[in-house]
C-alpha cells in the first residue's frame, strides 16, 4: 500500500497501516519535509515529495488518500489511472459534479474505491445498525444526531495545543463546504446506512465566524423508510460532543459517543504504554478495506454512497435558511 498525505488524519492512517497484517506500507508521499521525516522515523523507506512518483511504484497495489478536499479529484483520478485501488478520506469531493467525475474515472479504470467514514466502524454504532435492522426499536420515528466541536480549529492530539489551521479550510472554493460537509457528511452517511435513502432535506445554516462557509447547521432529513432525523453540527465550540438519540415505537435510546470518559482515556493510554494495541475505528476500516481487496469484494462505504451523501448535502445547501 501507499499513503498520500501525512497531515493530521494521514498520520493516523500511517500508524494504523504499520499494524496491518495482510498489507504492507511500501511508501508515503507528502509535500512537507517534516511529515516525510515523521514517516521515515516510523521506518518507511520510500518517501516521495510528489505523489506521482509513489503512483509509479509498481509494488504498490492500493493507496490511501488523505489530502485536502480540493485535491481529491486530481489525486483519485491519477491513482485510478495508475491502476491502484483507493481508500479516500471523506468527503468524496467538494460537490456533486466533481463526485460524479471521480466515480466515472474510477469505474473506467476498474479499480475499487472506499470512503473513509470511520464512524461506520465504531463498535457501538455497528451494533446499533444491527439493532435497527433487527427491529429492536420497532418503527423508528425520530432520530437526532449531534457532532459539535471546534472543527478544523480543534487542538491536536487531545492536548490543549493550539494549531495552525491550513488556509484551504477558510476557502469555500477549496473546501467545498463548512461544518455540514466536514462533520455532517459523517452523520448523513451513518443515518443513510441505518435508514436508507433520504427523500427530503431542509437545513438551517449558521455563520457565527463571518466566513463564507457555514460554521453550524441543523439539517432535517426525511427518509423514504419513514424516520425523520435532525442532525446538528458545528465548528464553533471549544468543547466536543457526539451523540445520537433514536426514538422508535418499541424502544428509545440515547447514546453519548464523545468525549470519552476519563477512565476510558486512562485505560487507552495504559494499553498504549504497555504496547497493547486497541483496534479503533480508523484501524478497523483500513483492515476491512484490505480484506475487500484480498477477497475481491466491493467495499462499503463506497464511492456511490459518498456521492449520495454529497447529493443530500447539496440539497441541504439548496433548501437552506440563513437565520442570521
Amino acid at each position, binding site marked *: 500500500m501507499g499513503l498520500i498525505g501525512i497531515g493530521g488524519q494521514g498520520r493516523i492512517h500511517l500508524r494504523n497501516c504499520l499494524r496491518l497484517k495482510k498489507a504492507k506500507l511500501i511508501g508515503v508521499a507528502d509535500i512537507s519535509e517534516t511529515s516525510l521525516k515523521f514517516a521515515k522515523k516510523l521506518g518507511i523507506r520510500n518517501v516521495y515529495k510528489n505523489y506521482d512518483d509513489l503512483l509509479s511504484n509498481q509494488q504498490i497495489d492500493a493507496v490511501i488518500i488523505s489530502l485536502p478536499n480540493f485535491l481529491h479529484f486530481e489525486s483519485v483520478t491519477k491513482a485510478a489511472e495508475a491502476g491502484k485501488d483507493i481508500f479516500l478520506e471523506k468527503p468524496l469531493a467538494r460537490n456533486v459534479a466533481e463526485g460524479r467525475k471521480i466515480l466515472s474515472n474510477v469505474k473506467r479504470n476498474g479499480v475499487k474505491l472506499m470512503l473513509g467514514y470511520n464512524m461506520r466502524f465504531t463498535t457501538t454504532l455497528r451494533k446499533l445498525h444491527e439493532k435497527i435492522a433487527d427491529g429492536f426499536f420497532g418503527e423508528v420515528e425520530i432520530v437526532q444526531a449531534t457532532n459539535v466541536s*471546534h472543527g478544523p480549529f480543534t487542538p491536536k492530539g487531545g492536548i490543549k495545543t*493550539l494549531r*495552525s*489551521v491550513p488556509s484551504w479550510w477558510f476557502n469555500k472554493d477549496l473546501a467545498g463546504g463548512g461544518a455540514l460537509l466536514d462533520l455532517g457528511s459523517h452523520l448523513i452517511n451513518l443515518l443513510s446506512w441505518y435508514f436508507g435513502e433520504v427523500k427530503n432535506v431542509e437545513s438551517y445554516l449558521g455563520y457565527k*465566524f463571518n466566513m463564507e462557509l457555514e460554521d453550524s447547521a441543523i439539517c432535517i432529513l426525511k427518509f423514504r423508510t419513514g424516520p425523520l432525523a435532525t442532525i446538528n453540527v458545528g465548528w464553533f465550540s*471549544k468543547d466536543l460532543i457526539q451523540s445520537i438519540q433514536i426514538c422508535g415505537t418499541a424502544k428509545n435510546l440515547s447514546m453519548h459517543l464523545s468525549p470519552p470518559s476519563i477512565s476510558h482515556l*486512562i485505560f487507552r*493510554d495504559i494499553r498504549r504504554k504497555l504496547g497493547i494495541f486497541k483496534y479503533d475505528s480508523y484501524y478497523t476500516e483500513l483492515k476491512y478495506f484490505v480484506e475487500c481487496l484480498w477477497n475481491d469484494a466491493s467495499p462499503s462505504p463506497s464511492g456511490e454512497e459518498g456521492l449520495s451523501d454529497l447529493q443530500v448535502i447539496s440539497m441541504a445547501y439548496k433548501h437552506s435558511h440563513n437565520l442570521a
Partner: protein
Amino acid sequence: MSLVSFVRANDSSIDALKKAIKRSLNLIRFSFARSINKIVIKPNMCYYYPPSTGEVTSPQFVSAVIDIFRENLSINPDFFIVESDASAMKCKYVFKMLGYHRIAKEKNVKLINLSEEKNKIVDIKVNGWYLRFYIPEIFHESDFLINVPKIKYMADVKITCALKNMYGCNAYPRKSIYHVALNEAIVGINKIIKPDLVIVDGLIVYGKNTRRLNLVMASKDPVALDAAASNVMGIDPTSVHQLVLASKENIGNLEFIPVGEAFSYVKQSFPAKSVKDKIRETLASTYLRIFHE
C-alpha cells in the same frame, strides 16, 4: 501603590458597558484633558474563539472604548486596532471571525496586522536571557496605547492579562520560539512598549469555567493591574514569576489599591480554581507528561 478600579456593568447593553468603562476610568483618576491624534488599541485575539468563551476581547467592548474616547477628547483621533500573527493564528482570519471587521467599518477605524507592518529589531536582556523583538513602527508613531486584555489562567505563566497581552505587539509571527523563556519574553516586550492605559474586558471571564461577570477593570499600571487580577483569580501575585520580574524591571508596582466595587465581592464572583481543581490539574499535567510527551 497604583490604583486599580473594579466596576460591574448593570447589564450587557452597550450603554451600561460605556457607563462602567467611564466610571472605571474616573476611579483611577484618568484625565481626557490631553492632545491625542493617534490611538492604538491592543485587544486579545489569541485564537479563533468566539468572545462568548471569555478567551478573547469582545469587539463590542473595544467599540465602547472607542466611543468613550471620541466623546471625551476635544479632537477626534485616528484609531488603530492591532494584533499580530502567531504560530497558530492569522490576523486575516481572526479579524473577520471575531467580528472586528464590522467594528472597523462601523467606527471608521483601521485594523492593523502588526506582522505586516514596518518594524525595527530591538534586542533586550531580561533575567539573563537575550531576546530579540520586532517592534512595529506604529507604536513609535502613535500618541496613546490602550491595552484591552482578558483575564485568564495560563498553564505556563499562571495568569494572562495586561502584561501577557502585550506579547502580541511583537511583529514576529512564530511566537512559539519565545516559549523557552516565556516570562522573560513577556517582561521584555513590556519594557519596550508601555501602554498608557489598561482596560480589562471582564464582561465574560474564563477561570475554571466561563462566567459572565460584566466586570471592567482599569489601571495606568499594567503590573498593578495584573497583581490585582492575580488576586481575583486566587493566585498570590508574588508567586507569579512574570509579575515579580516586571516589578524588578520597574515596569510597574506589585502593590495596588483597589477602588470601586468591593474587592472581596469581585474575588468571590470570579470562577477561581479551588485547591481541588489545582490538585486535579497537577495530576492531569503529570499524567500528560508521562503518556503524551
